[in-house]
């Protein structure tokens, strides 16, 4: 008899005894509800299996979402393991590769993964547990409701009735899948909300290859790509004759305004590319910082704006105001600069394309490469690697496309590697934005009119028009204006709000001072108003806002730290989570210094205490570091910072201490990769104002003249 692959798998399964559930978790598209008895390691995709229990008791979980350091690969399985009720030590987590048949939303971005999958994850675990209990109950001829589970065992009502999940897998696999299952109550949680260490720690600590840049495949060559130094420049000609004479160089090819140098090793390619002579179109009129300032000035005056929101009549109200406060804020372009620079491996062969590398959006990589090469999507296979950070940069697959295009030209498996300089000067930045705010107060110091105009460079709508304090103010006008710049931009951790929040929270502090109000109480008063009588449409829940504000005021001892500690308050809602922060500044040797940040976060249920703390503290350090130091400037289209010697990232001797508290109210979990960042710039600016009485209007704060624009 011929041994087909399937029968081989079945036989293996009979030998090894594996119970595998293939159903609706992670929003599986396959409609099965069927149970397969097989070895998921051999053919997970075919049978749609993400959760497998071996008869040894080992539990294997596949994590479909790309891991960029946000902890998803640990957080997802925690939820399944909790409901399944197994010992965490018996769980092994594996990264699933791209499979559009099986998974939906196989991406990382927008802090949306947990929110999306919470119910599906719980259902996966609870369903398997339910079936294991049924199997045990049948074996003991007892009522299943008299059985319970504990750490991978089913325990029956009578003495000695205890069976390991591993011993029940064969019987459980033959039972029907229940349509509905009960979840654990919060009080029963043992794993959710505890401190769980990263599942990849051992690999990281021992230096195991796992990142995109670590990819090595048989026959693979290395390439680096020379792109125009200036945004807006066109490659007119190039001379690679010297390059080709260099040792280790295999080929030099050009496509889409770029020249690729292909060689045997990284160093040889790095050396050879220095000999490349490229000629470009005239660059004298390309964008400089001064161009951007001119555009911002114009954008503030133009009447061609897009009205993003209008409540009441702002102009009439401001005309009647007893007091008017106005301020302008500005931020520069920023590079994402994840520690692992962009890179991708591609092997384009007739009939099949293999892509391996770091991407937050593997499915769009697959689609885009299929379109680019004119091949069917199902012939493009994407393997996910661990990512050395992303911060939004890897939502854009430009570098994966480059690799695929190059491989199709040179007909070799190739790893395209960006140097740090390529990465920093290669585009897709956080857009530069300028904001203008205006507030009108009545005699009682109440804000009756609120105005915001955002002018962005490739920023789209640079406002978030339905966010607090909108909803609390009778007369609101919010406008945006966008310039198309040759400098490419993209989402950067907490897109738009990463600076909008900073500007707005600084401005509201200025309003509070002008109104003679406490900044914390002012927000609480507004939120009371929203609760009883909101103005227009709002997207946030005032009670959750109120709770984080109250808690942060208490934890940070708001207003009670004595004359030498200068506090700044900020609160922001983004990615469906609420974060309030109090920053503290002290005068050290005559200079103001931010020493501490207290944060209270409402992200609903905290899945992993360790991962959650990491995201909040990391987000605050990220927000603080970039607010203080981050700047990418331009001269005739050329980025002026090329590496970490001139583009300053925050270091360990420059950080404030951070306290991260969580409301942890049991509401379905929401995003955490981004929401801690937006409030930080404002809290810091307000603390520095309290210490120095100087407002900071322009980022980066350090080493700049920060007088009003």
């Amino acid at each position: 008899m011929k041994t087909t692959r399937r029968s081989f798998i079945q036989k293996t399964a009979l030998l090894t005894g594996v119970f595998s559930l293939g159903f609706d978790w992670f929003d599986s598209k396959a409609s099965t509800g069927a149970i397969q008895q097989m070895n998921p390691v051999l053919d997970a995709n075919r049978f749609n299996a993400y959760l497998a229990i071996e008869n040894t008791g080992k539990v294997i979980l596949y994590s479909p979402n790309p891991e960029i350091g946000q902890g998803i690969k640990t957080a997802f399985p925690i939820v399944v393991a909790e409901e399944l009720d197994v010992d965490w030590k018996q769980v092994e987590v594996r990264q699933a590769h791209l499979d559009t048949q099986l998974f939906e939303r196989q991406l990382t971005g927008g802090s949306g993964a947990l929110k999306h999958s919470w119910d599906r994850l719980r259902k996966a675990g609870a369903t398997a547990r339910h079936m294991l209990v049924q199997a045990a109950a049948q074996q003991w001829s007892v009522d299943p409701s008299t059985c319970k589970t504990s750490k991978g065992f089913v325990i029956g009502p009578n003495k000695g009735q205890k069976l390991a999940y591993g011993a029940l897998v064969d019987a459980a696999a033959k039972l029907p899948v229940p349509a509905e299952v009960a979840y654990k109550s919060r009080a029963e949680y043992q794993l959710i909300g505890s401190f769980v260490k990263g599942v990849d720690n051992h690999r990281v600590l021992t230096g195991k290859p796992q990142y995109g840049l670590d990819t090595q495949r048989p026959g693979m060559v290395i390439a680096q790509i020379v792109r125009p130094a200036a945004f807006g420049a066109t490659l007119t000609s190039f001379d690679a004759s010297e390059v080709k004479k260099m040792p280790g160089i295999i080929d030099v090819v050009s496509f889409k305004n770029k020249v690729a140098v292909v060689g045997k090793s990284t160093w040889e390619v790095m050396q050879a590319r220095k000999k490349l002579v490229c000629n470009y179109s005239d660059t004298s009129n390309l964008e400089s910082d001064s161009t951007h300032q001119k555009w911002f000035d114009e954008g503030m005056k133009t009447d061609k704006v897009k009205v993003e929101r209008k409540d009441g009549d702002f102009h009439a109200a401001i005309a009647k105001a007893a007091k008017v406060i106005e301020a302008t804020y500005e931020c520069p372009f920023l590079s994402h600069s994840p520690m692992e620079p962009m890179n991708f491996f591609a092997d384009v062969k007739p009939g099949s394309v293999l892509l391996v590398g770091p991407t937050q959006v593997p499915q769009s990589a697959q689609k885009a490469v299929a379109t680019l090469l004119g091949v069917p999507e199902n012939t493009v296979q994407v393997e996910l690697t661990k990512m050395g950070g992303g911060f939004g940069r890897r939502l854009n697959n430009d570098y994966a496309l480059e690799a695929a295009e190059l491989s199709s030209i040179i007909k070799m498996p190739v790893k395209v590697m960006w140097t740090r300089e390529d990465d920093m000067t290669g585009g897709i930045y956080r857009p530069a934005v300028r904001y203008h705010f205006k507030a009108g107060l009545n005699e009682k110091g109440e804000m009756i009119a609120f105005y915001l105009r955002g002018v962005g460079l490739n920023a789209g709508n640079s406002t978030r028009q339905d966010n607090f304090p909108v909803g609390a103010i009778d007369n609101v006008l919010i406008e945006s204006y966008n310039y198309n710049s040759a400098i490419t931009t993209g989402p950067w951790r907490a897109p738009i709000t990463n600076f909008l929040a900073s500007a707005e929270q600084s401005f509201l502090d200025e309003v509070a001072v002008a109104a003679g109000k406490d900044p914390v109480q002012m927000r609480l008063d507004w939120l009371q108003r929203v609760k009883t009588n909101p103005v227009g449409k709002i997207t946030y829940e005032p009670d959750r806002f109120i709770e984080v504000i109250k808690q942060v005021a208490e934890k940070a001892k708001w207003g009670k730290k004595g004359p030498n500690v200068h506090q700044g308050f900020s609160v922001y809602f983004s990615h469906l989570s609420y974060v309030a922060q109090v920053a503290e500044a002290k005068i050290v040797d005559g200079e103001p210094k931010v020493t501490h940040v207290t944060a209270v976060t409402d992200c609903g249920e905290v899945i992993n205490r360790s991962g959650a703390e990491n995201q909040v503290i990391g987000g605050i350090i990220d927000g603080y570091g970039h607010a203080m130091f981050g700047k990418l400037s331009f001269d005739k289209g050329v980025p002026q910072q090329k590496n970490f010697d001139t583009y300053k990232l925050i270091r360990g001797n420059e950080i404030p201490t951070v306290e991260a508290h969580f409301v942890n109210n049991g509401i379905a979990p929401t995003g955490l990769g981004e929401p801690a960042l937006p409030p930080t710039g404002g809290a810091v600016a307000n603390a520095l104002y309290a210490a120095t009485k100087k407002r900071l209007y322009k980022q980066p704060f350090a080493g700049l003249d920060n007088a009003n624009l």
Partner: protein
Amino acid sequence: MESIELLINRKKVKVEVDPNTPLLWVLRDHLSLLGTKYGCGIAQCGACTVWIDGEPMRSCVLPVSTVGKSSVTTIEGLNEKAEHPVQVAWDELDVPQCGYCQAGQIMTAAALLKKNPKPSHDDIVAGMSGNICRCGTYHRIHKAVKRAAEIASVSNSTKKK
């Protein structure tokens, strides 16, 4: 091209490379020791930190020809089972986020503790400030160095007994 002999993680190896090639690329491209990371290539970030005769060095700017007979230790040679006190502390406090900078952080921390087994908080902050972590894991790094010092002192005193 030159044939160069190296002593890496207590093993002798031979490579055929341009003698100017930085040690980092010899490790990664020629020896497939991929744990040592590239972050900047200009001695700014510390991701590429290895030991040369026990001293932490930035392998991205170290021509392989200058290594000579010195013994090179990379993250792979620190302790395969992750039982070095620094690795233990790093796991216990769950330091890594994306993890990419951590090989360099760990090699720097372990070298620091060899020189200064009981570092003060300021010693730790100063000793670690040459290594960038884009994910911002600095607080846990500082705590973990302190914790590693404790673990090492306990295991040393039990060894003595």
